[in-house]
């Protein structure tokens, strides 16, 4: 309710500021000149506003939102020995947003002594998943491959793979990403299909990803799902969160930073939030100045 009032007040305040500024002739003339600004100046501004906060961090505090808390709490409910499916459905293009989510998820899962079966629906995913497993599960928590975690690698087919896994995971992934038959991996003897995993932790960059897992698996195989996704996808998944088809949602680098805070890590997402803040302010300024320049030029043209 308060937020609704705040939103409406914000609407009125912004409109009033703009109307007031345009009435000052010097301001109007100066703004009109901005219309011809070469876009490479904006590129330079973006460059500086990303690089400088990375070199000289402001260390603005990150406050977890309810969605990150839900994601964290859902993983906290797991018990030692539970088996979780970790689907890393992304590639290097989304690495800055999703890599921190993967590492923090692995950190929390390993702290809970949960066993992890990893897979990828994106071809670029397996090396990223393996890097995460190596850095966190193997090197930090001394997890044993084949007993505590398995990387099944990539399988083409998108939704068909999800359905096939619902029927039989060993049938879909006859060997792991190194070519080892899954029958030789002790952990896989305890995994039959999607109904035998306690939770799906889905790190998703788009299609195929969280949407397909929700559509094909959440109700059909009674699969609990938490999702870490790119900021582009996140707005759409709020609907799944509200309908309890998703039990937790991390959106973009901000979501990754919130989750890092909850797991007690100061990772790359947290360190990137200062730069994120400064560029957001720049984009907001660009929107305002661009419109002010346009309106000022129009008023001058009308005179």
């Amino acid at each position, binding site marked *: *309710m*308060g937020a*609704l009032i705040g939103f409406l007040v914000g609407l009125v305040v912004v409109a009033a500021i703009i109307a007031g500024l345009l009435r000052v002739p010097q301001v109007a003339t100066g703004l009109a000149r901005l219309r011809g600004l070469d876009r*490479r100046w904006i*590129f330079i501004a*973006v460059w500086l506003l*990303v*690089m400088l906060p*990375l*070199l000289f961090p402001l260390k603005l505090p990150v406050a977890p939102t309810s969605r990150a808390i839900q994601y964290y709490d859902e993983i906290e409910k797991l018990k030692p020995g539970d088996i979780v499916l970790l689907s890393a459905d992304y590639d290097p*293009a*989304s*690495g*800055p*947003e999703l*890599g921190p989510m993967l590492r923090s998820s692995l950190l929390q899962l390993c702290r809970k002594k949960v066993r992890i079966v990893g897979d990828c629906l994106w*071809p*670029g995913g*397996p090396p990223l998943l393996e890097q995460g497993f190596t850095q966190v599960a193997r090197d930090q928590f001394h997890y044993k491959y084949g007993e505590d975690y398995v990387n099944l*690698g*990539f*399988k*083409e*087919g998108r*939704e*068909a793979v999800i*359905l096939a896994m619902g029927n039989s995971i060993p049938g879909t992934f*006859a*060997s792991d*990403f190194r*070519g080892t038959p899954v029958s030789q991996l002790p952990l896989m003897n305890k995994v039959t299909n999607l109904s035998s995993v306690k939770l799906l932790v889905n790190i998703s960059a788009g299609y195929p990803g969280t949407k*397909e897992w*929700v*559509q*094909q698996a*959440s*109700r059909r195989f009674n699969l609990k799902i938490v999702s870490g996704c*790119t*900021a*582009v996808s*996140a*707005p759409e998944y709020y*609907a*799944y969160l*509200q*309908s*309890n*088809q998703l039990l937790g949602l991390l*959106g*973009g*680098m901000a979501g990754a930073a919130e989750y890092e805070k909850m797991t007690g890590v100061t*990772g*790359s997402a947290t*360190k*990137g939030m200062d*730069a*994120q803040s400064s*560029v*957001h302010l720049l*984009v907001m300024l660009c929107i305002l100045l661009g419109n002010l320049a346009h309106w000022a030029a129009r008023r001058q043209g009308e005179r």
Partner: protein
Amino acid sequence: MHLANPLTFDGLGVWIAALLTLFIFSFLYKDNPFYKLAEHLFVGISAGYYVAQEWWAVIYPQCVKPVMNGSRPLMIIPGVLGLLLFSRFVPKVGWLSRWSLAIIIGAYAGIKTTGFAQGDLVEQFHASLLPLWVPGQLGVSIDNVLFVAGLVSTLVFFFFSTEHKGAIKSTAQLGVWFLMISFGAAYGFTVMARVSLLIGRFQFLLDPWLGVARF
């Protein structure tokens, strides 16, 4: 400053990656041969990666191996159908590739129909049945009313089987306002996503390559 050592294999990889990154960034000034080289290299490497990945991750373990060792001889059928896709390079027998396309289209039509029906229609409709009055919680009640009003008005906007006039026009107009708020929020998140990717690239340049920061 701890520059990556180009005399080691890993360090050489970091230097090449950094230079290619700068080649691509040079497009911001204008199109140039360095960018073109990086662009074409990227397309070639990606295509090669996908082919190798499809062979070792799918075609060999799912088709070639089970057929050769006799564990699943029927998998010869999708193997042959997959090879038929290449018949489109020979005009006389190119029509055979439509059989393979038909398999793909038929399977996904069935899969997606049920997936969307359950995940995006039935469940979403079920979750939209919210109480419009929650005793003792005025804020939640107003939010629920607003939510349902937004949902219904946006659905009315997309209903084109009847002319938008009178009450339907007003309702559709309300739907447009909700849609604009939704698009604005999506735009905000898109800005965040794009900027995050740039931050990641800078973290690579500043840490593994130049070694002036720690991420």
